[in-house]
């Protein structure tokens, strides 16, 4: 049995301006410990898919119009509120794009991580030791001294490490990293991706990495799903897709990756009109 199975999932937003079809019938499966990258541009539905896994999208305006999300044999879309809360953080944890606003500015990092641990692992006695262990795991130096820091006292990279530590602290089966490096500068980006790689080898945990950046998934993801306008247009092993993309949109996306040492020319942009004419 796969850890996660998404079958024909469609998500609509019912707004005053009309119905927005954000996700139009997608299928995905993820085994235990597997890493999947969902790649696509802004508005392609990749973040919506990630948030839908624990129904974090506000309902209304969100409506799950068709399909199923099966996590560990249970249907997420029909789950009761208390079951859903156990799933959130406890079994599926998130790391979001903007660490500076994703952490609560008025609570210490100890406070915020402890809140998650006390909720999902109430049997744990020494909460502080557990927090320090996880801060250490994500590469924060002198974690014991940082416990009582507020988020604004940390750099962006450190804040994102705290977010990751918070996500890991409840030992989830699946970590959803939604553009975890987009708000960070390139060197920190590399450090955080390195951290993810290290963590994946240490912990037996499945990861869904949501990104618009094909450049960072190469040595990281087992599988890739390319999303375009709410649909998965290409889905398969990372090597196959990077080496031999089939879909016009995937090809266009891969072409957009700037290459070191390549002759200087204008960066390539995606011609949506041409893609649409080709039937994407």
């Amino acid at each position: 049995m796969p850890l996660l199975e998404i079958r024909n999932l469609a998500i609509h937003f019912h707004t005053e301006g009309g119905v927005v079809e954000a996700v139009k019938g997608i299928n995905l499966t993820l085994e235990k410990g597997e890493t999947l990258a969902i790649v696509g541009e802004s508005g392609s539905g990749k973040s919506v898919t990630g948030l839908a896994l624990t129904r974090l999208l506000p309902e209304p305006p969100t409506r799950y119009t068709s399909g199923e999300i099966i996590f560990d044999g249970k249907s997420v879309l029909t789950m009761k509120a208390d079951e859903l809360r156990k799933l959130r953080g406890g079994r599926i944890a998130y790391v979001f794009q903007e660490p500076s606003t994703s952490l609560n500015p008025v609570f210490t990092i100890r406070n915020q991580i402890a809140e998650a641990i006390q909720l999902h692992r109430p049997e744990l006695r020494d909460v502080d030791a557990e927090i320090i262990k996880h801060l250490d795991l994500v590469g924060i130096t002198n974690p014991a001294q940082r416990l009582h820091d507020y988020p604004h006292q940390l750099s962006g990279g450190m804040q994102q490490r705290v977010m990751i530590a918070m996500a890991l602290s409840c030992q989830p089966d699946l970590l959803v990293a939604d553009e975890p490096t987009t708000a960070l500068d390139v060197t920190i980006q590399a450090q955080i991706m390195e951290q993810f790689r290290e963590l994946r080898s240490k912990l037996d945990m499945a990861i869904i990495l949501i990104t618009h950046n094909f450049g960072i998934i190469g040595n990281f993801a087992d599988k890739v799903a390319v999303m375009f306008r709410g649909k998965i247009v290409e889905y398969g092993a990372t090597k196959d897709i990077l080496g031999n993309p089939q879909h016009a949109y995937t090809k266009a996306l891969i072409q957009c990756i700037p290459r070191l040492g390549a002759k200087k020319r204008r960066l390539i942009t995606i011609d949506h009109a041409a893609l649409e004419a080709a039937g994407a």
Partner: protein
Amino acid sequence: MLNYLIRRLLYAVPILLGVIFLTFVLFRVVNTPEHAAINALGPKSSVDARNAWIVNNGRDLPLYKQFATHTIQLATFDFQPSITTKRPMGETFREGVGPSLCVTLPGFILGLCLALVLSLYQVFVRNSAADRTITLICVVMMSLPTMVYIIFGQAVVALGLGWFPVSGFTKGLDAVRFLLLPVAIMAIISLGYDARMFRAVFLEEIAQDYVRTAHAKGLSATRVLSRHVLKNGLIALITLTVGQLPKLIMGTLLIESFFGIPGIGNVMVQGIQTSDEPVVLACAYLGALLYLAALILTDILYAAADPRIRLS
């Protein structure tokens, strides 16, 4: 922290001088010595007596000298006794503070709690029929003048239903039956406005990223609201509420005079009605002083509520 406090107190000095100057213009320049003498001695007093009063009170001196005495008197809280009651101001205030606080403090706290609960509930059920209905009621409540609440309370609740005495005050525990109605009105008067403001504050907070993180942790919606959103909204709430603190000590003019509560608000109303210059001057000056204190307190509370704010 201490440095900051000292600096803030120093900043308050020019503002205080401004207050002293304005009160001087109003009470010593606009209000001519002749008028002041008539006020103090009564309309039937003789011209000689009035002139003697003007000389005795130094109102014939050049303005700069009068300003100097005025400044020293206010700065040292050396207020003249009331013209009508002949009692010193200190005594009047000491007697008035208790009854004023009996009404304003419970009224303020009750009103604040009601507004918090109501606005958090509205955010909880946001954009639903219940939310819109409460908003509509709030707008109606905001639109009604204070007098409507007082007259409704006295005419319908007190007189008509006979649940409470119409007005009055007494010492000791027995005062409670006199206080219930004015406290309830005090709590309700600003409820519509406060609830609307608080709701706007919380709605802004609920759209923040950290709220999504809190939900993603698996926290219940109530806990997210009562812990994460409430604490972040505190800064705005402090701004909206601490400025009202001077009113607690200075009492509420309308409620106190209608319900016959012998508080400072009542003293002020009577002072204005009888043109009791020393009383009105002392009230205006103390009101300004308390307001300045509230502003400093606001800044200190900001730092307590938000770790990003450092007082230095």
